[in-house]
């Protein structure tokens, strides 16, 4: 009888593994997301010099207006930023989203030229030349994008460029839902 059980071992192992696989598929887990400690917490401090001359500096007040805002870190030297840029333009023009753009480790005049060339979707734009704000916000590189609700709580954190799918499935529902 014991010998028989031994021959069942491979089948039992398979059943165990398959259970985990089915669980994983049904749970809709995203293995690529490494999570973010910021999600569910108040947004970090915002204290950045303005990118466009003659504008006031960016402060925490911009994040607690009762309306959702999108914070996007970018740089003119970053190619993925180029890829996601049209999506932000569309968000700003078509959907009227409030987007705060922060040029990270980027010379202000280069960032300004870049925005002039491609169009400027940012209602507020900051220049984080030394990358200090990037440290505050737990940035691992550019581009990264944060969705912040009206109370100033971070609801979503995208590392890397946002895609058409992110826009339709996450960002637009968020802008509609979060007040």
């Amino acid at each position, binding site marked *: 009888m014991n010998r028989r059980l031994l021959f069942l071992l*491979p089948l039992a192992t398979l059943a165990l*593994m398959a259970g985990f*696989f089915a669980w*994983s598929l049904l749970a809709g887990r995203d*293995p690529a997301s490494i999570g973010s400690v910021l999600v569910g917490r108040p947004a970090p401090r915002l204290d950045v010099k303005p990118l466009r001359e003659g504008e006031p500096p960016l402060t925490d007040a911009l994040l607690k207006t009762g309306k959702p805002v999108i914070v996007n870190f970018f740089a003119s030297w970053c190619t993925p930023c180029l890829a996601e840029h049209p999506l932000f333009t569309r968000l700003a023009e078509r959907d009227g989203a409030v987007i705060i753009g922060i040029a990270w480790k980027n010379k202000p005049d280069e960032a300004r030229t870049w925005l002039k060339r491609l169009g400027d979707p940012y209602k507020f734009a900051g220049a984080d030349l030394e990358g200090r704000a990037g440290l505050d916000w737990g940035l691992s590189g550019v581009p990264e994008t944060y969705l912040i609700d009206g109370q100033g709580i971070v609801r979503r954190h995208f590392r890397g460029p946002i895609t058409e799918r992110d826009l339709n499935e996450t960002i637009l529902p968020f802008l509609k839902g979060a007040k």
Partner: protein
Amino acid sequence: MVAELGHFALILALAVALVQGTLPLLGAARGDIRLMDLGRTAALAQALLVIVAFGALTQAYVTSDFSVANVVANSHSAKPMLYKVSGVWGNHEGSMLLWALILALFGAAVAVFGASLPDTLRARVLAIQALIGVGFLAFLLFTSNPFERISPPPLDGNGLNPLLQDPGLAFHPPLLYLGYVGFSVTYAFGIAALLEGRVDAAWARWVRPWTLAAWCFLTLGIALGSWWAYYILGWGGFWFWDPVENASLMPWLAGTALLHSAIVVEKRDALKSWTVLLAILAFSLSLLGTFLVRSGVLTSVHAFAQDPARGMFILAFLLLVTGGGLALYAWRAPQLQGGGLFQPISREGALILNNLLLCTLAATVLLGTLYPLFLDLLTGNKVSVGPPFFNATFVPICAPLFAALCVGPYLSWKRAELWPALQRLRLAFIAAVVAAIVAATAIDSRATLAALAFGFGVWLIVGSLLEFGQRLVRTGFRLPPRSALGMTIAHAGLGVVVLGAVATSAWNTELIKTMKPGDTASFAGFNVKLDRIENLQGPNYIAERATLSLSIGGRPYTVMTPERRLFTVQRRQVAETSIHTNLLRDIYATLGEGEAQNGWVIRLYYNPLAPWIWLGAALCALGGFVSLSDRRLRIGAPSRTRAVAQPAE
């Protein structure tokens, strides 16, 4: 029109596969020779129909028929012809069609070359093969139809994933699939044997060529994939323990174990149920790999075509094939009685050790690959299991495997003496020790483990050649059977892989430097000068190209031109590394981010013996093919030897 023909051929193929998967089984159970013979005709018809379907999709790609949705999603009219063709299988639907094609071709091969198989065994093997085919064809037709039309057709397509636009990767999937799918024949033989309740020397001899062929293709496929990762990902490494790589390594390890245990069944009538289990596992692990890569349950640096809905289908299929096979195994295998008795120190003993270690390796890889998934589901913790885990577990298990590898061929069947075998390996041992000492003292005194591993590589090569040489002397320089020659080549090839892998990993040098045109740097004895950076326009990409000139002591040595390509249609960047090789070492250069003001990031690697990794893998596959050409192992051979032997009696 052509696309509809392909679609229709695929539907017919499914119908034929259903017939092939049922009636011959019935025939084998009833002893009805007509029903059994139907399997052969059906296998050929099915292959023909899938060829038509595959041809139709290829035609759509080659002519850039943008009324087919699959072509729109994965091709572009500006793409070079090679990638239009390789685009056929560079996507989910097309690669599944390639699976189905190879599956049907293997089925047809069994029908054609299996003339000498007993009727019932052949009928059952073909039926099992067809049932697997039913799964894939249904998957294609119901969830991933490659012939779907789009209306109105767009002017141009979206293009192929730029990482896949590479000659190395154009041929990587077909080779890999030849390996994965080849194991389906082994699986079918295993299931058929369980149904018949008979595993004997003849069965082992019939199943061996199919295992060997699948193993050779899989070896080449893995090597090609690793080579591609080496030069396209631009990280200088050749193996990253990524889930996708592990997915191909597991069936390879199981297949290698199967190759060796089948010898014991053939020669000594022992290890029967174990060998059948390996036959089932090799294919199951291939399916598991496909599931892991395509379902998106694991993240990977190069996972394409991920979709949870498809994942469910593949999981169900995996459960059906593997679960069905293992259930049948649990039911029928206990009845398989082993024959030959043997001592622990014997050829059988050595092959069992080989099997234990190879299976431990496969289990280690499986555990390391799935652990992040288990942990995430159970505790919500995200971890990534990478090289540190595998270096600490996989590599030490290789040591006893390599140590025993050279000794095994010296041991006789049933009972052997260890000491005489070791004495005859004296020379290999001395060579290995000398190599390890030289490596430890002359190259890098801190890397003792690397020096030891280097010694193991030398031991494998010299030990294998020594055994072959002594065999030649013993037999008066008569050429030994091809299978023995193949074994020597494959074992020595493994040693070459080990030398390349150890030297590249342990003794490489690396330089990462931000350079502007005109800047110089010294690297591994070379003087490196960045001559210029220029912009290029490729057929479907724009690129920055650096020109680096290397010189030794003022004398020009070579010019390297790494590029960074931006594929405009997909907006994706791909590093095009520049590699200068002289077969003993690679100089490897990549161009990183940068602009005129601050300079560009240039990375240079000096990888000693790197080409040996792929050279060795090619030798392993060559050994397999040489062994495959052995007359005694050829599929038709048993009947011929019978025919020759009979008049003499």
